[in-house]
């Protein structure tokens, strides 16, 4: 094969694969700029709120065909903060999050349905306390742009909401203590393009 024909072939391969590489970008969840909060009824008096402070994960984001995207997130169960150390310990106990046995909560997407120009339903398996259940996240893609002070770093951001039932995951004591059991989840997540 001559030099020219080899170059032509290489160029053709590059052209052929370039759109694929651009279409599905890979991102790492930016832990310091991610807020995974939740709220649930506290016996009808008010809504109790909490946040998981350690959230990591990977996102594959295909802007041309969002249904080909995927997300995988790991939450450190012991990073729970409900504004009370005593309550955090109770919530981490065997009746609720059971962090000794199940230190991680994970979410892995299984399918995505685009619902609007910037919105989608992301379905996936939430695994908590050893139980996996499919949940649906209502996701909005907010923005993507380089950092103003470092244009080589591109950041994208999403907002997502979901409602889960704690008893689906075996947290039956929620009901006994007048908590939930419906839990509203709100996620604001920023991710750095790799």
């Amino acid at each position, binding site marked *: 094969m001559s030099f020219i024909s080899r170059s032509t072939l290489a160029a053709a391969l590059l052209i052929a694969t370039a759109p694929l590489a651009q279409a599905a970008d890979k991102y790492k969840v930016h832990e310091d700029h991610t807020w995974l909060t939740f709220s649930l009824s506290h016996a009808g008096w008010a809504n109790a709120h909490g946040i998981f402070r350690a959230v990591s994960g990977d996102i594959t984001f295909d802007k041309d065909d969002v249904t080909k995207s995927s997300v995988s997130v790991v939450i450190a169960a012991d990073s729970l903060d409900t504004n009370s150390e005593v309550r955090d310990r109770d919530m981490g106990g065997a009746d609720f999050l059971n962090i000794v046995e199940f230190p991680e909560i994970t979410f892995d997407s299984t399918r995505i349905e685009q619902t609007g120009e910037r919105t989608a339903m992301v379905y996936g398996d939430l695994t908590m*306390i050893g139980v996996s259940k499919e949940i649906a996240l209502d996701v909005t893609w907010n923005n993507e742009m380089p950092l103003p002070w470092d244009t080589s770093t591109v950041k994208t951001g999403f907002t997502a909401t979901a409602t889960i039932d704690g008893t689906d995951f075996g947290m039956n004591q929620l009901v006994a203590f007048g908590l939930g059991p419906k839990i509203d989840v709100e996620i604001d997540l920023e991710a750095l393009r790799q």
Partner: protein
Amino acid sequence: MTFDLLIFVVLAPLVAGIVLSAAEHIGRVPSLAIAVAVGATIAVIYVMHEGVPPLPPVSSKQKLGLVLLVAPVALLCAHRLKPMGQAIVFALLATACFIWLIQRPLMAGRFSLQWLLPILTIAVFAILPTVPTTRNTSRFAWPVTLIAMSIAACALALLGGFLGLGQVLISLSAFVGGYVLALFLVTLRKGDTARSSDLSLTAIRFGLGLMLVQLSTFATNLSLTGYLLLLALMALPFADRSLSRLPQLAQPFAYGAAGLLVGGPAILMAVWNL
């Protein structure tokens, strides 16, 4: 809601304890049958609170439910053995239970110093009941000790971040309370002729011991001093044999007061988180 809770958590187990004790002391049902029924009732109490464990169980709470269901069978196998043999059966069952409960953190290479407490619990529950008491030791010594331990354990669980097990232990306290109440009433009527079966007490010790293994392994805010005092209650039947020389009907109150001397501080330690 509160009334339902009272019936479910306290009254039903109390009545079950009274019925089984009466069947043992009045109805003359074979002690082995009663002991197995006592063990089964403890398992049912647990399952009523924590739900029917799935197969295979996922969490330690579900595993304990299955172990409690197996405990009466273990007792059935061990009933012909001498106290030492029964102690070995309990130690084997409780050790297997403990290893199963910590299977996940163990497999992940995560260890905890707190795990020394369940090991100590197994040793105390296996060894102390084999120590012979005097011939005239009160029939109330062990039952009242077990009530005191259940109540103290309940407080430690509730204050130690193990709310579900705390509720189970409230019910267990009511159940053992019902058992002792019927024993007291029978003694009031029949005097010394009605003996209590060691097997029923062994069944209660099996159940309580397994729950304490769970409590000491997984309570996220367990009071160490309180828990050690709780275990010290197991020495109550040996502590002061002069209690057995009191009039028979005064003995449960005397043992109860002695239990309060140790169990009370155990609860206070838990309140103060020491």
